[in-house]
Structure formats: C-alpha cells, structure tokens
C-alpha cells in the first residue's frame, strides 16, 4: 500500500510537469526527447529495470546498498524510506509514461480553446494562463487515468515487492500462490478489490475539486 502511494506521488510529480512542458513547447527538441522517454517507459518491463538498477547502476555509481531489514514507517521512517525509495521511483517512472502522454495530449487540446486565448488577451502572465486556466481543465481525464492506474499500481507492486523483498500484500499473495494456499489468496483478492473500488470512489469525488461544474449533493 505504502509503495503504491509513494509510486503514485513520484509518478504524478514526474508526469504532470513533464507533460505540461512537452505540450507547451510542442515539437521542440525537449518535446521529442521527453516523448521518446515516455514511449520507452511503456516498453521496458519494470522488473528488468529493477534488475538493471540493482546490479549495474548501483555498483557503478557506488551508491549504498539497500537495507536488508525492513522497518515499518511508524518504527523508523528514515530506514523505511531508504528501503522504499528505489522501488517507488521505478514504479513511479513506469506509471509516469502513460500519464505524461495523456497530460500532453489533453494540454494540447486545452491550449487551443477559446478561454485560453481570452486569458492571454486579458494580459495574464503565461504561467498563470497555463497553471490556472489550462492545467486545471486538462487534469480531469488525467485524474480518471490515475484512478484506473490504482489497480495497475497494486499489480506492479507485486513484482517490485518480490524483487525488493518488501513484506507487502503482493509478496504475501505470491507466497500463498506458491503454497496453493487458496483461502489466503481469496482473502487478499477481496481486500485488494475493495481498495480499488475505494480509490475509484475517491477519484470520482475528486472530480468536484478540480471541476466545479461537477457537484455531488
């Protein structure tokens, strides 16, 4: 759960600005580079990326190895994060690919709208136009996708948890499956389905924050 949340944060932090930049500077070299990176992020399997990072990037850069033991965030937050940051970044990057593409597409569409031209004609600063007028409207479909990604996140965390040996639900599921422990599998499935539904509900409610036209009374 924590891994999924961290990955979502990382993914959003990466994807939104990158998508916006790539849309604002459409067809520039930065746009091309960012777009090809996003396409690559779609194609590279996350577990292979993890293997590469662990076995090649870490020794080459001389980074400290990940801690072997695991401590919960309430026990020792720093130690927990030290174990978590690599899988979170990897999962977040995998997530950021499609999100960035969508953000870019939506931004391109929104930037051609009349109200953006109006905002510019009013003499607003470009930053303000992009953040307050364009981004807010482009975010709605992106939000939907973030909601849909919730299930992908939990799924992706299965692989990350088994590589980085994080005692999460995914690892539990794998162990139960290998032991053919069907009741445990069923229990985990139900809990996860419940979380997915709750996340989707939260996303539905979050629409009203982004778009004042949508109201739930």
């Amino acid at each position: 759960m924590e891994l999924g949340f961290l990955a979502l944060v990382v993914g959003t932090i990466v994807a939104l600005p990158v998508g916006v930049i790539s849309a604002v500077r459409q067809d520039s070299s930065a746009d091309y580079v960012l777009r090809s990176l996003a396409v690559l992020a779609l194609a590279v399997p996350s577990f292979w990326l993890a293997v590469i990072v662990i076995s090649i990037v870490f020794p080459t850069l001389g980074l400290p190895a990940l801690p072997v033991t695991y401590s919960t965030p309430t026990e020792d937050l720093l130690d927990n994060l030290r174990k978590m940051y690599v899988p979170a970044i990897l999962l977040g990057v995998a997530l950021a690919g499609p999100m960035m593409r969508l953000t870019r597409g939506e931004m391109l569409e929104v930037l051609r709208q009349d109200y953006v031209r109006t905002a510019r004609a009013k003499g607003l600063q470009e930053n303000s136009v992009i953040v307050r007028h364009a981004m807010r409207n482009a975010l709605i479909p992106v939000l939907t996708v973030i909601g849909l990604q919730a299930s992908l996140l939990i799924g992706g965390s299965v692989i990350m948890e088994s590589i980085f040996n994080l005692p999460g639900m995914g690892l539990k599921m794998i162990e139960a499956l290998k032991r053919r422990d069907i009741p445990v599998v069923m229990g985990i499935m139900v809990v996860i389905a419940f979380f997915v539904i709750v996340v989707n509900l939260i996303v539905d409610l979050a629409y009203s924050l982004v778009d004042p036209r949508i109201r739930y009374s």
Partner: protein
Amino acid sequence: MSESAAVDEAVVLQDSEGIATRLRGFLETLINRSLESPIGFVSALVALVVLGSFGFLIAVVVMPYWMYRRRKYLGAFGALILLACVLVAFFAPLIQTTETSGNPNVVPYAKAPFSERFTPPTWDHILGTDNLGRDYVTRIVYGAEVTVLVGIGTVLLTAFLATAIGIVSGYFAGAGPGWQMRGPPALLNLPTPLWWFAALPVALLVLVAQSVLRLLDIASLGLAHDQFERLSESLFGQIPSRRGGLPDVDLVIQRVVDVWNAFPAIFLILGILAVLGSGGDGFFGLGRGPDIGPQADFGDEWLWEVFPRTTVVIVTLAVVLAAGNSRIVRGAVLSARAAQYVEAARTLGASNARIMVAHIIPNVMATIIILSSINLGVAVLAEAAISFLGFGIPEPFPTWGRDAGGLALTYGAQYWWMAVFPGLAIAITVFGFNMMGDALRDILDPRLRGT
C-alpha cells in the same frame, strides 16, 4: 478472433482492389451461410479460423512495406520487429548458436557445458552464457517461440472474446434511435403491493429462467431463436412485448465486467494460473508442463510438451484482457448501432444476429484492430512478468521473462550480460509492437492522430 485477422488482411490488401473485392465477396458468402443453419455457422467459423491464421501471417509479412508506403517509418520499424520475431521463432533451430554436436537428445537451449559457465560475450557466445553454461543467443531465439505464440494467441483470443462480449452488450444496450427501450418486466407490474410481495420469489425465478433462455439464445447468435422462444412460452406462458421483452443483457454483462475489472490484472492472472496448476496436478491436468529436468529429451516435440501450459497462459491472459477491451468495443458498437444503415437493415427485416455480424462487426473492426495491436505489447509484457514470478511456462523451456528475472537478479552484479540481454530482448520487442500499434492507430483512426 479469426474474423479480426481476416478483415485485417482485407485492410492490408485494400490497395489492390481485385483481391479485396473478392475477399469481401467470400466473407459475404460466409456470413450468409453462417446465418442459415447451425452447421453453416460452425463450418463458417472453421473456415474463418483457417483464413484468419493465413491472413494474420500475410498481414505480418506485408505490414512493414505497407507502413513504409504510408510514411509511418517508426511503425514500419515496429512491424519489421514483429516479422523478425515470427521468423526467428519459426527458424529457431537454424539460428541458434549452440554447437549441435554431443548428445543429440539434449535440446540446444538446455545444453549446459559446465566449463563454459559465466562466459562473457565472445565470438563463440555472442551474448555470453549463464550460470549453467547455456548460451544466451540460443535461449533468446527459442524464447521468441513462446513470446510469439503467447503474444499472437492472446491477441487473437482477446479480440474474439472482447468482440463477442462488446457486441452483445453494446447492441442490446438500453436506449438508442430505432431501438425500443425495454419496458419493466410485465410480471412485476402487479396491481397491489401485497400481490407484489407474494409474487416476488416466483417472479424472480421466472425472470432468471427467462434470462438464461435469452442468454442461450443470444449465445447461439439467435440461431435457435424460435426453439428457445417456444420453450420459454411453454414454460412461462407467452411473454408480453416480444420485441422489447429482452432482459437487460447489457446491464448484466457490464456489471460482470465491472467486477472483473475491480481486480488488478496481474492478481487475477496469477490467481487463475495458480488454480489451474503448473505441475501436472492442476485443474483437469490443464497445467501440465514438461516436468523433466534440464536434460530434457523432447527434441522436435517441444511444442507438444509446452503447448498445454502455453494454452493455459494464453487463455488466462486473454480472459483478463478481454474484460477491459470489451468496454471499448461496446462504446464503438454503441455509435455504430445508431447509424442509419443499421436502421435500414432492421427495416428490411434483418435479424439481430445478421445486423450484428454483417453490419456492426465490419464497422467496429478498426477499433478491434487498434486494440489488438496495443494488446500485443501488453501480452508480451504480461507473459514476461508472470514468467518472472514463476507462474509461466516452466523450466527448462526458456522464456524471456524468466531469464531476465531470477538468475539476472542473483548474478547480474558480477556478470553484467546476464542482467542485460534477455530484458533487452523484451524491451526492444515491446517497443516495436507499441510503435506499430501507434502507427496503425494513426492510419485507421485519423481522429486520434498524434495523441
């Protein structure tokens, strides 16, 4: 599945007018035959499967050139990768670089000369060897067989399932021009509340039975419509409002799809695979894999040995992918259904099955082909992931996912080639498939261009 490939072929060949017309005529005959009798339906299905397989192969061969002519250079590159994958998989025994000398009973990908273990990339072993001395070129080349088999099989099956679900669901969805809204079931329109409560259990039972009969009717493409109708009438009396009295098939199917979608795909896949089993002890023995050691002795018969397990993986992936895809197909069907030619066909007295097969399927074909091309990459990635987790095709048969995972993780830090190459194979392949999918989408659906 087969139809998607057949029309795929039609699209590929659209430049040469003569073949396309003849193909269309052939498909027309097939549709007519299949709607005439159950035997015709089955034989048409068989013909389409055969035609579809050929069509798919032709499409794979023609695709790079076609993309190149449409100035989709990245797409042409992706199509070339697909073609290369199919060729490599087909000619694996010729391409592999392990020496064929020694024990002829040992398959090349399992040859493990102990003295050559952990060989870095050299001319003898271009991509190096693993901890048992197995050559990585050979393993990747043979692994392409699994990738191609699982990828294409999953795509075809997913397209078939998603089309079937999406069309039935979308075609019978609630409202739409020219479509009578379903009235409330007549049995529940009882006058007094008391009556209502007393009749509720009975009514529910009757409703369920009616729904089952109707679903069976739809499942048989309406071929047995009269029989089911007669059975239903004899059991429950005449159903009022014959045309509008269908149960809300769309609602039922969509709720099932909702439930299906609430589970993260990989959990669902792993769960199904685990229940079906992997070592001969599975459900109906479906999970039977080659449970022989690394010195396996199945020579040319690998397909026969690996096939049951591959089938299980394909079916599992397809079932899980189809649930999400059927939504998109349903959306396309909803818009196709509103078109005037559907109206015209209905006015001419065409049956629901005929409208679905002859008028709606050809018009949602572009959506299905685009979905399939996207699925190709997804399926390969998913297969790699489940192989990595140890639920895919079992040892000793090589799969890219397993090679890129466990051993690479253990030894990758000391022997870099073990970490890099199998994963690189996956990454390049999936990248190519994605590029091809993007180009195909640009060509077939100009509205989505550039997104």
